[in-house]
């Protein structure tokens, strides 16, 4: 059992939790993920490590309430326990030697992009952050990004905060202004990462994306998380979650992500009704 020591509502659909998991906190690096089960009969879901504190022995997760399990998780409070919490899984992001990087985050993906931006910044790398949200109510981690970025571009779809437009608009501008990036790191919805990659391909800038497909065990056992990268089948859990974005078959990944959509929608309604009673 893993104790929730801090819970913070970041926006109406996104929650942060700091969880006691000393063994994982000792090892975790940006880019890695954990798998949790909320309760005894719960499903296993992967969540990326948003932050870690080796001394306190805690792992921070940030999740969007999208399905039954995240709904249940969101109903837990400080002092309560998550049944299972395992990790750190996956390969940590490779950021050694990078001097100038554009970090692109979309929506809750910013929760994963932030620790990477922070580590880059701490390593002395010049960080240009481009973060995008649907509207101002959904913005998360703005101050945190500001603190670790040399250049910061806030974008919203409706212009209610920052500049109106897509992250690709801002990234294109930065590139056109003459910024030479060693690498672009893009983390967010698949469709966003697909279009970021399409853009950076034109400029021939290496782009790394973080994939978050459906998974069960997270150790290479089930193969449910497989993706096509450069024509080869890869397992996101052990080969990733970071991949060369120019090689990822995003269309296939988007299709695979919808496999249980109907089940999920129904299940979440059931869970919501449970809490309404």
């Amino acid at each position, binding site marked *: 059992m893993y104790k929730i020591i801090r819970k913070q509502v970041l926006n109406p659909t996104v929650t942060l939790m700091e969880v006691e998991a000393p063994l994982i906190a000792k090892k975790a690096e940006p880019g890695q993920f954990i798998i949790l089960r909320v309760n005894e009969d719960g499903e*296993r879901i992967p969540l990326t490590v948003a932050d870690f504190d080796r001394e306190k022995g805690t792992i921070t997760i940030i999740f969007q309430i999208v399905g039954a399990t995240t709904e249940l998780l969101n109903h837990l409070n400080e002092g309560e326990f998550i049944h299972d919490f395992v990790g750190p899984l996956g390969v940590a992001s490779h950021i050694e030697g990078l001097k100038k990087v554009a970090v692109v985050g979309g929506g809750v993906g910013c929760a994963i992009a932030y620790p990477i931006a922070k580590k880059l910044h701490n390593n002395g790398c010049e960080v240009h952050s481009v973060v995008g949200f649907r509207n101002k109510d959904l913005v998360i981690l703005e101050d945190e990004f500001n603190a670790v970025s040399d250049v910061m571009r806030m974008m919203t779809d409706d212009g209610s905060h920052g500049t109106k437009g897509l992250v690709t608009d801002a990234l294109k501008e930065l590139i056109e202004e003459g910024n030479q990036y060693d690498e672009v790191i893009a983390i967010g919805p698949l469709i966003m990462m697909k279009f970021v990659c399409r853009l950076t391909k034109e400029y021939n800038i290496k782009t790394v994306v973080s994939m978050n497909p459906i998974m069960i*065990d997270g150790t*290479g056992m089930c193969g449910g998380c497989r993706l096509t990268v450069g024509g080869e089948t890869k397992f996101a859990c052990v080969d990733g979650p970071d991949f060369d974005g120019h090689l990822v078959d995003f269309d296939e990944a988007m299709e695979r992500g919808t496999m249980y959509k109907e089940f*999920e929608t129904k299940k979440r309604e059931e869970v919501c009704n449970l809490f309404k009673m």
Partner: protein
Amino acid sequence: MPNMSLKKNEMPVQDANVRNKNFQEVALGYTEEQALDEAERCLNCKNKPCIGGCPVAIDIPAFIAKIREKDFEGAYQVIAQSSSLPAVCGRVCPQETQCESKCVRGIKGEPVAIGRLERFVADWHNAHSTEAAAVPAKNGHKCAIIGAGPSGLTCAGDLAKMGYDVTVFEALHLAGGVLVYGIPEFRLPKSIVQHEVDNLKALGVKVETNVVIGRTIEVDELFEQGFEAIFIGSGAGLPRFMNIPGENLKGVYSANEFLTRVNLMKAYKDGSDTPIKKNTSVAVVGGGNVAMDAARCAKRLGAENVYIVYRRGEEEMPARNEEIEHAKEEGIIFKTLNNPVEILGNEHKFVTGIKCVEMELGEPDASGRRRPIEKPNSEFTLDVDCVVMSIGTSPNPLIRNTTKGLETNRHGCFIADDNGQTSREGVFAGGDAVTGAATVILAMGAGKTAAKAMDEYIKSKT
């Protein structure tokens, strides 16, 4: 006078058309009368060839003699001297190629039903015994076991009985390994596995779930933590695919994923949080026990047509005869000598069919089995909405990639000698992690051998 009937007492089973709609155990187990009658078939012969056929060398005639005396607890104690998981082995061991294949009664007629008797004894013990296991006196030495599957649990049990302080590390949230994620409830009820794990805990074995060795903790850190010998029983869990077009369509599963969803995550239960696709027609590709398990699960989940697609003939299938027969009785359709070449999908990328070619058998290949050769112009399509790939697994690379000095072969299996000793001092390995995918009992045998070697190793150092 021994019972000279040429036939075994038949195993009572659930009717095929009832059981293919539920997940309750298929084989119901002998009654006391049947067990006594079957025990009378053992001639208690001098040579005891059956013992040589058992990977953990259970004194089979001795436990059967105890059954004849109606001393069922005594029979259990005989088995327990050699096996830590009798209720499991009585169910899933391939006795027909092991102990029973050596039984002299098998020369003329059927051998003694050793497996069924073992199961009877273990179930009797679990139902009647109230005595708590005596906790052995501790010898002050610590051993770590990686993986709570058949080899790891066996190794842990034996070491605990010798007085070692044993900790088992398990990556999943539940101990049991393939016994809980792979073998379905109807073949091995999970309560039995839990009971065996509880027995080990009663012996003082600590089980740490949610710890991935190679990620959460590395092998070298275990030594730093004071573990003097380490056993790796991490199994062969990495699924293989065929690399044919369409394998990433929605509705294509590895057998591991399909079975894990159904068994470990209990997707077969109404109200489970873990989804599984509801299908009308399922093709399971492969001919092993795992393929049979997947096919029979698919049938129970409500699929109308379930096919086993296998590129060789039924003779060449690696699955146990009993599993093949049970599958057939339950209505699984066997498409042998057929090889998939492509999986077809609709515009939403859901599976709609599997394109196969017919095969014929040529000369024997390296495995000794006749090599399947494609028949020209024999392509055809089976309409299915789900495909389960059950063509084997390889060992997980996590430990070998994070541990220095551990040698592996070209298949990624750890190299270990007959005692389980790896290329690294103090590190032992066994089960599928060494042999590649094999059986529960062979893994248990390896765990047992390694426990003995670990004991000798630690003693030699102190």
